[in-house]
């Protein structure tokens, strides 16, 4: 049985958020306050601050060679967990044991100094991420070769293109040869090629029995790379086990939740809203329930709602929010020219989308109920994820892909015909 690489026991992290109204007024007050809290450590700054629990009692054991995905909605504590495990910030309670050299791809290029040359930065960055001078010297040539920037090695990195910068930084990180690698996809930058390089590197490390922690919003990547997934929700481990089950759990069957900003606008208790979306379901054109669609397919979305108070002239809005929080498109009954009768009793409404040419990604369905003039808001919820699949098109191609018309202007035939047809089209 392999050894344990990471053991977390009841890891918790609280952040204190100052309550604005009672902030210290002057520096001397602040100094006095901090002196006080320094001297009387148990008397934690008398309720002047709210606490926010980013992680609570997170426990798990990860064995050497495991490849573990960490998923969760925004604010679930994924990044906080990585920060704790990489010692950037300290836990409030609990402990963790780390057995092995830790590297991470969340700080690619950390400590690069723009004024220093590539050569100088290799040494500086190498030392910062934890390599000894000997190691850096030994791997220097390999790092330079791997980064493909030989001819610019003595140029200050501020003159580098962003691609060169990232390549060099990544090359240094790669030669740290960590036994535990942490990847935070949200923070990692770079183009498609670079991301592929990262993944190839992770794969190679895995073969050498390294342990990998992978934070991602991309369920395809998690499914493809990980053999175990920890699903964090509101700072706690909600599920820990097989990727398929964890993703199922993460996406929830037909779950929707109230949007926090709407709770401020309409009322904190969604069960008291005039309308509430009880269920969101997705079907394909044949009526079969599905949440995985091919690029270009039409999607039928059924919303089941409950009504507490009559809403006249309602306007249902459905938006697709990509996993990186980008709102991609919207359909609404008012603009689509469909008038909905006043909502008086529970019921349901269906939307059949045009062929969805969105790129291959996960999309959350966001539902709002407003009035036809967009003046009132009755309900705002988010939930139910569906996926669109395409072998090539991903977020690097933008939001959607539609077919364009192409011409060769230098070719006489095309050029002329274009001009002629152009005239007749208008």
């Amino acid at each position: 049985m392999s050894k344990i690489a990471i053991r977390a026991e009841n890891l918790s992290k609280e952040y204190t958020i100052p309550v604005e109204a009672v902030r210290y007024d002057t520096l001397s007050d602040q100094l006095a306050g901090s002196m006080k809290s320094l001297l009387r450590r148990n008397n934690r700054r008398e309720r002047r601050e709210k606490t926010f629990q980013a992680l609570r009692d997170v426990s798990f054991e990860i064995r050497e060679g495991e490849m573990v995905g960490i998923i969760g909605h925004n604010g679930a504590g994924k990044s906080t967990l990585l920060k704790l495990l990489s010692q950037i910030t300290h836990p409030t309670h609990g402990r963790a044991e780390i057995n092995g050299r830790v590297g991470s791809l969340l700080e690619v290029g950390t400590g690069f100094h723009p004024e220093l040359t590539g050569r100088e930065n290799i040494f500086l960055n190498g030392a910062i991420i934890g390599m000894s001078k000997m190691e850096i010297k030994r791997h220097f040539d390999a790092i330079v070769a791997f980064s493909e920037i030989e001819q610019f090695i003595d140029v200050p990195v501020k003159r580098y293109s962003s691609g060169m910068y990232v390549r060099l930084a990544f090359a240094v990180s790669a030669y740290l040869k960590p036994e535990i690698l942490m990847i935070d996809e949200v923070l990692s930058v770079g183009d498609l090629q670079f991301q592929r390089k990262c993944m190839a590197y992770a794969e190679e490390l895995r073969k050498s029995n390294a342990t990998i922690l992978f934070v991602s919003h991309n369920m395809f990547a998690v499914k493809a790379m990980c053999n175990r997934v920890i699903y964090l929700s509101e700072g706690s481990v909600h599920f820990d086990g097989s990727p398929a089950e964890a993703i199922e759990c993460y996406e929830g069957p037909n779950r929707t939740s109230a949007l926090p900003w709407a709770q401020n606008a309409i009322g904190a208790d969604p069960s008291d809203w005039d309308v509430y979306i009880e269920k969101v379901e997705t079907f394909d054109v044949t009526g079969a329930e599905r949440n995985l669609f091919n690029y270009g397919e039409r999607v039928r979305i059924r919303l089941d709602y409950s009504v507490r108070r009559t809403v006249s002239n309602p306007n249902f809005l459905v938006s697709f929010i990509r996993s990186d929080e980008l709102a991609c498109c919207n359909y609404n009954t008012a603009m689509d020219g469909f008038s909905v009768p006043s909502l008086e009793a529970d019921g349901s409404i269906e939307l059949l989308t045009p062929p969805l040419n969105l790129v291959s990604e996960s999309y959350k369905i966001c539902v709002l109920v407003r009035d036809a003039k967009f003046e009132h808001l009755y309900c705002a919820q988010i939930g139910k994820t569906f996926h669109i699949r395409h072998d090539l098109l991903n977020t690097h191609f933008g939001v959607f892909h539609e077919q364009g018309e192409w011409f060769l202007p230098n070719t006489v035939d095309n050029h002329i015909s274009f001009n002629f047809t152009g005239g007749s089209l208008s």
Partner: protein
Amino acid sequence: MELTAEAALKKPFKVIQPRKGLFQLDLGSIWNSRELLYFLIWRDVLTRYKQTAIGAAWVVLQPLINMVLFTLIFSRLAKIPSDGIAYPVFAFTALLPWAYFAQALTKTSGSIVGSSNLVTKIYFPRLLIPLAACIAPVVDLVFSFLVLLVLMACYGIAPTWAILYLPVFLGLAIITALAVGLWSSALNVRYRDVGSIIPFVAQIWMYASPVAYPVSVVPEKWRLLYSLNPMVGVIEGFRWALLGKQSPDFSAMAVSAAVVTVLLAGGIVYFKKMEQSFADVI
């Protein structure tokens, strides 16, 4: 990407937990990361004069320009005495440790905030940051020291054997800068006010130190209080070691060294306490 045998043998083992007690300082980690300390100092030195027209010449020019200004203002206009030593040499000898101290204090105070991209993204012993910031300006001091030797030769002043004591006085200057800098750099993370206060502190401190004037102009009854300022001992020490002036008051120096040591110890404890929240509040 095979793991080397040495790496497999001594796998680092770390326990991450809330720090218990004020005095769990883990100073050994500073020693273990001495290579990183070296690289941080090296970075500071290397980048200080990059993309300047005359580069490292500034190291020499800055105290020289100050010396000329001091000579014009304090010696010619204000007629401040210099204990029988040519005023330019008198001033330059004091400017040597003072310029170091003022620079180290400023750099150290802003060091943590200035490294926020490191602090929020990767772990290494945070103490290295202020430590590197207060050691790096020593390089400048070494260069201007060479200028001083030239200047002394011009004025026909030969150094005495007391020059061997210079490292002691320099050490006291470094420790003073570090002691104050540890407090101010950690405070600066939470209260950026510190960044605005430090220039005034440095200015007031300069007038409270015998940079432009000799200690002999300080009234006798204030002398003891005055010499508690560690920079008084440092500057007097430099003048004694280089120009053969009367020796500084070593007993007062011992007292101020003790004060600095307490300040330093407190600074380390405070810094280590605040260190845990740097990434969260910076």
